C-alpha cells in the first residue's frame, strides 16, 4: 500500500477523525461506512477543518511510522460518506460541508486518488438502482471537481442496492443506504 508523506493539514484532518472515532465503528475497507451518520433531515455535525488545533498537537501524538497509508485513511474514516434524498442524485445542501472537507483533504494530499461508490436503498428495481447509484457517484465526483480536485484522481462505481450499509426496510435504514462512500486508492 502506498505511503503518504506527513503534512500539517493531514494532521489537522486526522485529529477531526480521531475525535469522531468514538461515534463510529471501525470497519475494514471496502465495508460500509459507519452507520451513525446523517439521517435525512439533520445536517451532518462536522467541525470545519480550520477550527481544529494546529500542528503542535499533532506532534505530541504521531503515528509510529510517521506516514499515513491509504489503509490508514480508509480505516480511520477520514473521507466521510454523504447521503441523498430518495430517488435523487442531487447533492443535498446539508452534505456540502462533508464534501468540502473531503475535497480539502484530497487537494492537500495530491498522492491520494479516490473511489466514489454510489449506493441506493432497496426501493425500485435493481437495474434502476444500479443506474441511480452511478448518477450519485457521478454527481459527487463533479462536486469534488468543482472544489478543485482533479478529475483524473477520481474513480466512480455504482453498487446499486446490492450492498446496503444497514439491513432492513425502515426509513431509517433507507436513509443511511442512499449514499456515496469514499475510498482512498493507489495510483
Amino acid at each position, binding site marked *: 500500500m502506498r505511503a503518504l508523506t506527513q503534512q500539517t493539514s493531514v494532521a489537522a484532518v486526522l485529529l477531526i477523525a480521531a475525535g469522531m472515532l468514538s461515534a463510529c465503528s471501525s470497519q475494514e475497507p471496502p465495508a460500509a461506512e459507519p452507520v451513525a451518520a446523517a439521517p435525512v433531515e439533520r445536517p451532518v455535525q462536522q467541525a470545519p477543518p480550520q477550527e481544529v488545533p494546529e500542528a503542535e498537537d499533532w506532534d505530541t501524538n504521531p503515528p509510529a511510522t510517521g506516514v499515513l497509508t491509504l489503509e490508514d485513511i480508509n480505516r480511520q474514516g477520514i473521507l466521510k460518506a454523504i447521503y441523498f434524498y430518495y430517488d435523487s442524485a442531487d447533492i443535498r445542501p446539508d452534505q456540502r460541508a462533508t464534501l468540502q472537507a473531503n475535497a480539502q483533504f484530497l487537494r492537500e494530499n495530491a498522492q491520494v486518488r479516490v473511489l466514489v461508490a454510489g449506493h441506493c436503498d432497496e426501493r425500485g428495481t435493481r437495474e434502476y438502482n444500479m443506474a441511480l447509484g452511478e448518477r450519485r457517484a457521478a454527481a459527487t465526483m463533479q462536486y469534488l471537481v468543482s472544489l478543485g480536485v482533479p478529475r483524473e484522481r477520481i474513480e466512480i462505481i455504482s453498487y446499486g442496492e*446490492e*450492498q446496503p450499509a444497514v439491513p432492513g426496510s425502515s426509513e431509517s435504514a433507507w436513509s443511511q443506504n442512499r449514499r456515496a462512500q469514499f475510498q482512498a486508492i493507489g495510483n
Partner: protein
Amino acid sequence: MASDRSKTISRRALMTGSVALGALAALAPASSTSAWASGAQQQQGEIYLELRNRVRSAITVALPPLSLVPGAEGEATVLHEVLRNDLHHSMVFEVVDPEFYPALPAGDQPPDFVAWRRTGAEALVRGFVRREGNNVLVEFRIYDVQSGQQVIGKRYGDEVPPAEAIVSNSALRALAHLFSDDAVLYYTGIPGVASTHIAYVSNRRGPKEIYVMDYDGHGVTRITNDGGLALSPAFSPAGDRIAYVTYRFHDGVPNVDIAMLNKLGGVPPVIARSAGQDTSPDWSRDGSRIAFSSTMDGLRDGNAEIYTMRPDGSDLQRITSSSAVDTSPTFSPNGREIAFISDRAGGQHLYKMAIDGTNLERLRVEGSQVDSPSWNPNPQISDLIAYAASEGGNSFQIFVYSLTTRKSVKLTQGYGRADSPSWSPDGRQIVFEASQGDQNHVYAIGFDGSRLRQLTREGNNQTPSWGGR
C-alpha cells in the same frame, strides 16, 4: 380425442397457424377438453382473463403410481413425484385427479382403457421400476386412452453398467425430467424444459455469488468464487456459458465488468472491461451476440447506452445514442430487434428498436417505472415481453405485454417487489425474483399466472436467468 389427431393438430398449430394468430394459443396443444377453463384456473381472477382467453386447452393426463418390483419403493416414489410436478409445470399437461383412477393390472398387462376413459384423461402414463443389483431399471410409456395405443415408450438403465447405476436421488430426478421433456416434445413439437437449469445470485454463503439450480430448485451449485460481488447472470441459450457482472479488482480498484463462465471451469475471463460500468448482459437466441448496457461513453454523468458484442468481447457496437439512460436490453427471438428501458421521455419506459438503432418505438405498457424486460424466446410467440413495473408506490409486480394486442397482463400479486423476469427456453414459463418482508426469493410461474411456486429457500436470492439444458 385420438392421440394421433391431437398430435397432428397441435403440431400444425404450433408450426403454422399460430404464427399468424400471434397468440398464446400456440403455447398450449390443441384438445377437445375444457380442463383449462375450469376448476382452479377460474379462481385466479380477472387479470388472467386476457391471457386465458388466448389459450387453448391442455392435454389431460393420468399418472398412477409406478408398477414396481419390491425393493424399488423409494425410487418409484421419487420418480412419480418428480414426473407429476414436471408434467404439471410444463403448461402442456393437466394431471387428472388421482382419486378417480381405476386400478391398474399387476405386471405388464394392458390397462382397462374403458375405465380410464371415464377419468377424462386423454393420455395415461405408465411407469415400471425395478432394482437389479445396484442398478435401477425404469420404463415409462404413454398410452392414448381413446385408442388404447402406446404412443411413447422409453427405457432407462438397461445399458448402464452397475458401477454407474442410477441410484442417486439426483439421477432419478434427471430421469423423470428427461421423460417429461420427451412427452412435451411428442405433443407440441418443442422439447420441454424440465431438464434445463436456472442461474441466479445468492448470498447464502456470504458474498453475492452466481449459483445454478435445476429448473425446479433442486441440485443447487455455486459456480463463482469472486469474493466481492457477482450479479446479473445471463445463461446462454445453449446452456453452456453464463455471462455475468463482476466487481473484480484491478490494481486494488473494483470495476464493473462483464465476465464469462463456461462449463470448463477456471477463473471466468472478463469480456467487457471498459472504464465505465458494463451491466445487464443478454444473449441473442443464436448465441452469437451479447447486448449490454455501459457508461463507457458517458463517464462524466453516468449516462448508459446500449451496446452489443460477440461473446468473446470483440466487435463492439454502440446501438443507442441519447442523453438519457438506456439500460436492460433484451433481444427479440430472431435477433433483429432489441427492447430496452430508457428515461428519455422522463420516467422509465419500455422501447424497442432495430438492431442498428433505427425504428425506435415506445411501447406503452401498463404500470410505471418499467424495468427488466425479457422478450419471449419462442419464435412462435415472439409478441410477448415480460417486465417488472410499479402498480403504484413501491409495489412492483411482473407483467406480460403483447406486441400484437398492445395490452399488458399482470402475472403476480401481493409481493413487495417482483423483479427480474426471465422466460423459460420454450416460452411457457417465467422465473423471477420477489420480496416478501425481508425475504427475497426466486419463483417460477406459468405464462398465464398459474402454477406459481417458490424455488429458493435459503439466504436471499435474486436475478434469475433461465438457460438451456
